[in-house]
């Protein structure tokens, strides 16, 4: 009988030959010396393979040496990081020393106005680049939400109301709640205009280079654009994300704005809330309620019926009328002869000479002007108390997290060790999620989704230091086990170190940012991993 091939013999040795064929081979082996030698050799080879593989390489020697995760950042990485930090603090120090001409001030990334400029510019470029697509994005996200809703409902029905994930139900309810907003009117293009004789009955979402409303919008007006001009009437609220927002018409609701400049010379039923680099209320402007803003500079010439609260990086000039209190925190305050403040004036400034109150200015209530001396916070006992509370809060949150999601928390802590990867991912998440939130929110259909995302985002930013702290503590303490106690002790030590490092001028800020990015990156990575199926 003819001999068997090596592969057939190999299959037999691996126990992978079918029953009758295996039997035939065994029969053949009793008579064939050559094949028997081959089979023996193959069997020995398998044994060598098994033995070699099962005798694990040195590096897998003990789980103890493996479980506290290695610090994957080499000395080189640390040196680069240190160099970057030093360079960063030198450059930022140098920038602060520099006498930058006012015209160039907006390019200084370390000044308040420079920063806001940067934000607005990048936001604008995002909005501008995406203007044409924005409404399409909105529609797509809307449809995705709708599909999610349908799929979720189908899943619920399929499981006969026994969903595995309690969050799923909540999500479906929220998605369902937002469905009516499909009735929005969306417009986009280079120019979006509501002409003088036109009336928009619904809420209008407008994304364009230039948005101009001469007519009437019966709902809210939600706009994204380079310039937003309202000359007509908005019966609801005006929500604007723009380089420049100009209101000379009437807004009956509130104004929520995130703009570089807001010029207001119209009528407003309620209040202005916003983050604006330069806010100007013209002497024709009338604000029905109050103003709550964080601004670079503000000049108030018109009338505000109620209180004005300002946090400003620059100056506040008031020459108009404020019905009630004026509260400001900032660099300088000027009240001209024509200024009227019905209630109290309270100001917190750096230097007393930055407050100018003209003789003719009238202030109905008390004047409370305080100079914020930048005394070292380290001398106040309250400061230490606050830090201790923060630290205890962090530990408590860490402990709760370990109690509820032990696996997730530990794995995320480990993932911090991926170093640059986590850091990079974190930077992406830190910058990308707000954009995603805005894009999802545009649809209004996705509004609940974006609100949940905001909550998750903020929570993750807080938790970031906990994961990084725990990781730091772990590599410093090198605990022998990975128990909860070790983890918490590590967290305590790590958070303590992070808190102290956080107070180093310049460096501290960078470290805090780095910690947030690292933690966010690890969190995002872990979320991604955990969402993948097992087998």
């Amino acid at each position: 009988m003819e001999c068997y091939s090596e592969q057939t013999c190999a299959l037999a040795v691996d126990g992978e030959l079918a029953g009758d064929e295996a039997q035939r081979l065994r029969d053949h082996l009793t008579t064939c010396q050559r094949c028997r030698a081959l089979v023996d050799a193959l069997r020995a080879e398998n044994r060598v393979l098994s033995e070699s593989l099962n005798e694990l390489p040195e590096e897998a020697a003990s789980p103890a040496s493996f479980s506290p995760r290695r610090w994957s950042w080499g000395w080189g990485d640390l040196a680069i990081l240190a160099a970057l930090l030093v360079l960063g603090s030198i450059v930022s120090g140098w920038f602060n020393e520099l006498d930058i001409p006012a015209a160039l001030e907006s390019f200084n990334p370390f000044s308040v106005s420079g920063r806001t400029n940067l934000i607005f510019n990048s936001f604008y470029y995002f909005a501008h680049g995406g203007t044409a697509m924005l409404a399409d994005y909105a529609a797509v996200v809307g449809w995705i939400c709708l599909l999610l809703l349908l799929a979720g409902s189908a899943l619920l029905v399929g499981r006969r109301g026994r969903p595995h994930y309690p969050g799923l139900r909540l999500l479906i309810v929220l998605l369902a709640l937002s469905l009516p907003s499909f009735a929005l009117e969306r417009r986009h293009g280079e120019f979006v205009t509501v002409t003088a004789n036109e009336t928009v009955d619904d809420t209008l979402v407008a994304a364009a280079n230039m948005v101009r409303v001469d007519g009437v919008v019966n709902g809210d007006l939600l706009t994204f654009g380079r310039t937003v001009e309202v000359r007509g009437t908005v019966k609801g609220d005006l929500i604007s994300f723009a380089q420049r927002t100009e209101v000379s018409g009437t807004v009956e609701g509130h104004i929520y704005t995130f703009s570089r400049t807001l010029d207001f010379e119209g009528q407003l039923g309620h209040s202005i809330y916003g983050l604006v680099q330069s806010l100007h209320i013209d002497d024709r402007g009338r604000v029905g309620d109050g103003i709550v803003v964080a601004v670079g500079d503000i000049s108030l010439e018109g009338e505000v019926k109620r209180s004005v609260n300002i946090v400003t990086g620059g100056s506040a000039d008031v020459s108009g009328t404020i019905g009630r209190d004026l509260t400001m925190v900032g660099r300088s305050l000027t009240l001209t002869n024509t200024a009227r403040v019905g209630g109290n004036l309270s100001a917190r400034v750096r230097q007393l000479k930055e407050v100018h109150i003209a003789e003719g200015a009238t202030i109905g209530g008390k004047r409370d002007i305080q100079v914020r001396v930048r005394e070292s916070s380290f001398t106040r006992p309250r400061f230490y108390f606050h830090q201790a509370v923060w630290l205890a809060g962090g530990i408590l949150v860490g402990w709760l997290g370990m109690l509820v999601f032990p696996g997730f928390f530990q794995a995320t802590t480990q993932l911090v060790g991926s170093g640059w990867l986590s850091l990079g991912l974190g930077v992406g998440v830190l910058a990308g999620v707000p954009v995603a939130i805005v894009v999802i929110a545009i649809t209004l259909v996705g509004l609940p989704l974006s609100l949940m995302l905001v909550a998750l985002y903020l929570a993750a930013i807080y938790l970031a230091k906990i994961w990084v702290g725990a990781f730091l503590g772990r590599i410093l303490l090198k605990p022998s086990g990975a128990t909860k106690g070790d983890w918490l002790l590590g967290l305590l030590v790590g958070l303590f170190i992070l808190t102290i490092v956080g107070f180093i001028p310049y460096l501290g800020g960078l470290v805090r940012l780095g910690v947030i990015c690292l933690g966010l990156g690890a969190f995002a990575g872990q979320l991604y991993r955990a969402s993948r199926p097992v087998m």
Partner: protein
Amino acid sequence: MDAKRNMAKEPQPREGGTSQMEGLDLESVIERARGHDAEAMGEIYRRYVRRVFGLCRYMLDSRESAEDATSEVFLKLQRSIESYDRSIPFPRWLLRIAGNQCIDALRRRQRGRRAIVEVEDGAAVIEAASSEPSPLGAVISKEDRAKVRDTIARLPDNYRVPLVLRYYSELSYDEIAQQLDLERNNVAALIFRAKQELRRRLPHRSK
């Protein structure tokens, strides 16, 4: 039989670990782990982390990715241990999860290209193989075994992965075929070729 063999290979419990779980047999530990007992999960981790890490280390190219994969596997285990139905021995089941994890990692690295591709002409080529006894067939020393491991580690994914799944995870050809999404024939051919390549690469030793 698998169970017995695998039990023998369990790493020794770490010194200093004073867990009361140590004395428990695997069955009870698994039972408790299924009830989300963190201590039992820890015990499983202690018993099998070396074995899982070993597989990941053979399958993946760096210690870092192997460590990542290992933590992944135990993380997934927490969620999936309920689905373990005892139809196969636990260590083998665990290694199957680990194998899948590594194959996923390999696939991701290849950005969607198939990490393990079929041999061009299936099983047919094999007939040309020499029938000389394998050069690996002798009793070999510890150094030689290290050399064998080293050479296996350097084999292309295509050969290394099936070889490791067969002789480390001790999966059957069918199981490997399922994991790699290949035909059984192809698995057989890949393993056969892997061994041939291994023989070619290992420095010839005196027989």
